[in-house]
């Protein structure tokens, strides 16, 4: 088990390094931070001084090595745009993104799994047909459009929920939370639905397909033949066996929710890391962009590891297989 974790962490290092390298190479094309920082009026001398100050005149590999060296020590420098330490900026924004992603994922699971089970069991009921049609909307409408539609209906027409921002937050040590205030919870509703809708429909369709598959399996027939009640057959035997692919997808999607909250955060002006990233792209703020991309790849690697470990917990065959050291 321990050796497994260590080997996975060692595999992750080249992944992180290549992400850093690729993102670093791309920054040459996002624009010129110096032009943006200097504004409308400057002399060539001022420009040269700033370029030298920022170290942008050094060769690519030297810049990259310096960046990796500093990043290894948790030092990401100062944001070009906000003149504040990048680590502070990301630490300030992370709670907003994580709370949003967590809420969206929980929403997707709590609604998606029962809907999937229901549509799997009662294939021909009108409610199942409705769920399936509804899921098509979730899969096919782009996120920003869903967000704007929700804002139009619930903020502009009905006036029930705020159209932007995070509401009031409570500070708990280094963490700021919106879970503890009414305005914070209200502000969370629309962005969480927007962000979670795609995942919700994905989970629903996945659970449904797996359920249909499993219900045809022999052991279900045997279970029924043994006279087990429907409840035990459906949830004890069938649902449990559909969970392996669901865990994989949910795990990977959680990473996607965190990384691609960018669109939702932009639409709702949600003060998270995604919004920070978009604003940094606009200003060619290289220190923030590289730190963010590195962090996101770290998130993906970590989630993959957790998903692998969860397989162990859910699927006994994997444990036995590895124990024998064979196939």
């Amino acid at each position, binding site marked *: 088990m321990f050796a497994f974790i260590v080997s996975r962490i060692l595999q992750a290092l080249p992944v992180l390094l290549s992400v850093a390298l690729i993102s670093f190479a791309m920054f040459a094309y996002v624009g010129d931070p110096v032009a*943006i920082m200097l504004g*409308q*009026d400057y002399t060539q001398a001022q420009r040269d001084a700033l370029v030298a100050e920022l170290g942008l005149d050094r060769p690519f590999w030297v810049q990259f090595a310096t960046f990796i060296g500093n990043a290894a020590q948790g030092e990401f420098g100062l944001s070009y745009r*906000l003149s504040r330490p990048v680590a502070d900026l990301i630490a300030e924004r992370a709670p907003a993104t994580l709370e949003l992603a967590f809420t969206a994922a929980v929403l997707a699971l709590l609604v998606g799994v029962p809907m999937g089970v229901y549509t799997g069991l009662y294939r021909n009921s009108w409610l199942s047909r409705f769920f399936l049609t509804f899921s098509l909307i979730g899969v096919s409408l782009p996120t920003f459009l869903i967000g704007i539609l929700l804002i139009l209906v619930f903020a*502009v027409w009905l006036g029930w929920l705020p159209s*932007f921002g995070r509401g009031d937050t409570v500070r708990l040590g280094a963490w700021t939370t919106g879970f503890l205030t009414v305005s914070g919870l209200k502000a969370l509703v629309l962005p969480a639905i927007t962000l979670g809708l795609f995942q919700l429909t994905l989970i629903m369709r996945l659970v449904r397909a797996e359920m249909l598959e499993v219900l045809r399996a022999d052991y279900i027939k045997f279970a029924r033949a043994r006279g087990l009640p429907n409840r035990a057959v459906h949830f004890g035997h069938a649902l449990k066996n559909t969970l392996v692919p669901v865990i994989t997808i949910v795990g990977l999607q959680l990473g996607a929710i965190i990384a691609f909250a960018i669109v939702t955060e932009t639409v709702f002006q949600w003060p998270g890391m995604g*919004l920070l990233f*978009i604003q940094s792209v606009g200003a*060619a703020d290289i220190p923030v962009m590289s730190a963010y991309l590195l962090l996101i790849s770290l998130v993906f690697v970590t989630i993959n590891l957790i998903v692998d470990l969860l397989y162990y917990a859910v699927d006994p065959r994997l444990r036995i297989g590895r124990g024998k050291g064979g196939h």
Partner: protein
Amino acid sequence: MRKLLMAAALGLALGAGMVEARTVRWSASGDPNTMDPHSQNLGTVTMVLQQIYDPLIQRTQDLGLAPGLATRWEQVEPNRWRFWLREGVKFHEGQDFTAEDVVFSITRAQAPTSNYGIFVDTIDRAVQAEPFVVDVITRVPDPILPNKIASVFIMSRAWSEQHNATRPQNTRAREEMHTVRATNGTGAFRLQTREPDVRTILVRNNDWWGWQEPASREGNVTEIIYRPISSDATRIAALLSGEIDFVLDPPLQDLNRLRAAQGIRVLEGPEVRTIFLAMDVHRDELLYSDVRGRNPLRDLRVRQALYQAIDIQAIHRTTMRGQSVVTGTFFPPQVNGYVQEEDVRLPYDQARARALLAEAGYPNGFGITLDCPNNRYINDEQICQAIVAMWARVGVRAQLNAMPLNLFFPKIQRDDSSIYLLGWGVPTLDALYSFQSLLRSRDGGQGNGIWNYGRYSNPRMDQLIDIMVNQSGEARNNAIREALRIYREDVPHIPLHHQMIPWAMRSNFQIPHMANNQPYFRWARMN
């Protein structure tokens, strides 16, 4: 609980004697990068800082000059401006305002890390002459110094020294500077909360010296909450749903909807910003054209043809939906030096344009790439699209290359364009700034031709600009007038229009529209 309620009631009763609490919540797409008053010369920074900090000289509602921290000023010698300071003013944190603070702030704005260099470019040094008198000594006689000093905010020297912020912030520094998030001005509002990109809350400074001035006596705002919203649709939704009272930059395509909406008012006014096309008139062969061996744009007739092929009224009507002021020159009437008679366009005339092209040796037109930003000016890309179509009708095959501003500006700054669209604002409100930056030959002198990426060069124009720098009175006015005439005849640019800027607000909020696109909340009323 009851005690608490009673205390609250008592508090309300006491408060009633003072100004009633009036909160205004407003929004724009961008957040200020910094709270440092001498670091970034950007509209988004100034729109918050000018509520907090006072300059020596203030702007009036029509952008004239009025006493600020200085009560009067005079050019006592050609190279010396004298400022008499207001007495009895205090900074928000309690320090007394003195001549030392003025000398310190001007010196700070001159630092290499300052972005406010253009406002202090002619200043040699500032010295204290008497306890409340400061002399600003310039290297050359500078008749428009008060115009420029009106953009320099005054900080407390003691406070800056205490917080180790005697120079504007430096990006290379590993540590964040105190002034990035904290302020200490003398202005009408003081900073209460600053959460970058989330919210910035200012509260009324009841001790501000200016509340008794006639213009601000009506102002009743006690709290200003600024929350940036970068998505256009969301910003407008927040205004419509009543979460926001005032939007500084509503998108043009939403204006008709906003005008029709209940309880929303759209205020429109001119901006001090002119949109024009500039072009490479320097190279012997254009970088992005199918003409080999010669540069068609060096030929006056070709420049005139491109100019006369543009149906500016169509752009005004359709692309700008009436929100522009068509012009034949490159700065608007609010700018000192503007001459009505020189603001005349070459007439729109396609036949004439074709004839001019044929005369210049291009009877079948030619191909060229038009570079254009797509997120900098109002409808910038659409303007370029319209122009490309209009040129096509006289045979000029233009290819549109539209890109975001962070790619566009570095490209033109490398002189890597044959013809491009640019918008030019005039923060000093004096013609010299436009002439010197856009039309002066680039010779390395401070400010000379730094935005002249077409490398236009005309010795007579250079002479006239030097007169504008060094002389005052009638000689200077004549120089500006002649330079404007050369601009009209020599067509170094193809002028298009001055931008109009709309502000949108809820009907219970009133604020004077300003041509510098800055809201002054001291003059605002919330009902």
